[in-house]
């Protein structure tokens, strides 16, 4: 049942326990307790809203930073990662295969703020060998959702 619940709410966090129960033909109480258990176990880590900030007055800057590091004795990738993800500016952090080690996604208010973060915080870290910062110019699709498109139902209202 857990997988079924997760598949349902993955793209629609607004479904209530009652809705999920109706869809899965389960008791709402059982669904609610599974949800709670999965939250405790950190299988469900949060319920976020996907916002297209470009459509608001808010100025925001997102950046993707490729980071190369040297893991040091007694300090593997996980420990370095922990030092990076603690920063509030870091929106996401992934360990990568290939030409660099970490992808750091940064949310900042201005380009200067992001530049400062790289120059003052990330760059000087002992294990960090190099960084390459890429600013996001425009987001087209995020979390499987096309951001620009406002989906209009253009079907005829009644058809056989």
């Amino acid at each position, binding site marked *: 049942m857990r997988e079924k619940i997760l598949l*349902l709410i993955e793209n629609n966090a607004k479904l209530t326990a009652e809705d999920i129960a109706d869809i899965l033909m389960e008791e709402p109480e059982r669904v609610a307790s599974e949800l709670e258990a999965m939250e405790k176990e950190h299988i469900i880590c949060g319920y976020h809203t996907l916002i297209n900030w470009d459509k608001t007055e808010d100025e925001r800057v997102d950046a993707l930073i490729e980071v190369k590091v040297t893991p040091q004795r007694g300090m593997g990738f996980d420990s370095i990662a922990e030092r990076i993800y603690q920063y509030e500016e870091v929106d996401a952090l992934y360990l990568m295969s290939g030409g660099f080690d970490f992808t750091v996604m940064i949310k900042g208010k201005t380009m200067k703020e992001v530049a400062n973060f790289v120059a003052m915080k990330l760059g000087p870290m002992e294990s960090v060998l190099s960084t390459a910062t890429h600013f996001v110019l425009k987001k087209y699709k995020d979390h499987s959702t096309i951001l620009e498109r406002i989906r209009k139902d253009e079907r*005829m209202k009644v058809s056989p």
Partner: protein
Amino acid sequence: MSAPLNHVLTEIEPSGIRKFFDIVAEMKDAISLGVGEPDFDTPWHIREEGIHSLEKGRTFYTSNSGLLELKTEIAAYLRRSFSVNYDPSSEVMVTVGGSEAIDLAMRAILNPGDEVLIPQPSYVSYVPCALMAGGRAVPIELEEKDSFRLSAEKLREKITERTKLLVLPFPNNPTGAIMEEEDLRALLPLIEEHDLFVLTDEIYSELSYRGRSRSIIEFPGMRERTVYINGFSKAYAMTGWRLGYACAPERILSQMLKLHQFALMCAPTCSQYAAVEALRNGDEDVARMRQAYDARRRFLVANLRRIGMDCFEPYGAFYVFPSIRRFHMTSEDFANRLLREEKVAIIPGNAFGACGEGYMRISYAYSIQDLKKALERIEGFVSRL
């Protein structure tokens, strides 16, 4: 100019849905649960093949019966679905939607006065097509107590010496009923005894929520007397591409092909190329959409029952067919009042045959969010009755 027009056509009533459409069209902010087509876009890889065919300049006619490549894929699909073989070059034809295939099959099979058995409630085209082909339409009234399935008993009651053709409209629009193996098996002796042709319209076959959909063509002796009809509209969300197909023994199909050749020449070429891609690489898309419909189906049935509407559980297509008998009003009154008072459009059951009176067709080709909004309004309406 007052010379009479074709009297068969002039005597056919316009579809009940058409009348209701005109009323709904006037109401701008109505929520509609009245459509008979998917809310998904055609999957991108399929659209891209259509676009690619245009870019390549494939803007020619195909052969009358369709691209051999597509007919070969259709035959392969039937082989893997039902273990039934059709020869792509003589027993498969591509049509402009499943609807054209219905028309062709009736015209190819019927002689004036032949009777066509049409289980109802069902899709609005069967009766007019039978009449336009010179036949006589004989409805078989299906009942909720039988889960709107066709029983041998119901079939036997309507067979006469003039009965020529049996229509099997399952999975069914508007009831959502399906026919399972034992239901189909029970019909076989009657079909054989009376030497009936069968038209099986399986346009919703991929939208079946209780195991795989069964077909009459799987049973011994049936393939030879059956026109199997399917298409791309419902399974792949390709309604606007207008593409269906028919499979039948050459004896029948060759006659259907004449009609198609003289009336239409061939189905749209770019749609045919897109359909090849759909059959080759579209199984996952179908599964994804089926899963979404199934979630909505259960959500809708549970909520309709909660707000006090009697609702039998449908296992196919994307409709539920609740009864409104307890409210002591006609289906059309219910539909009109619901539309005026709560601005929700659902289709009166009698649009699909007189025996649909007392029921409403509600489509769940809508998001859960849309269904929720509409349900709130329906609940408000029902609570006042």
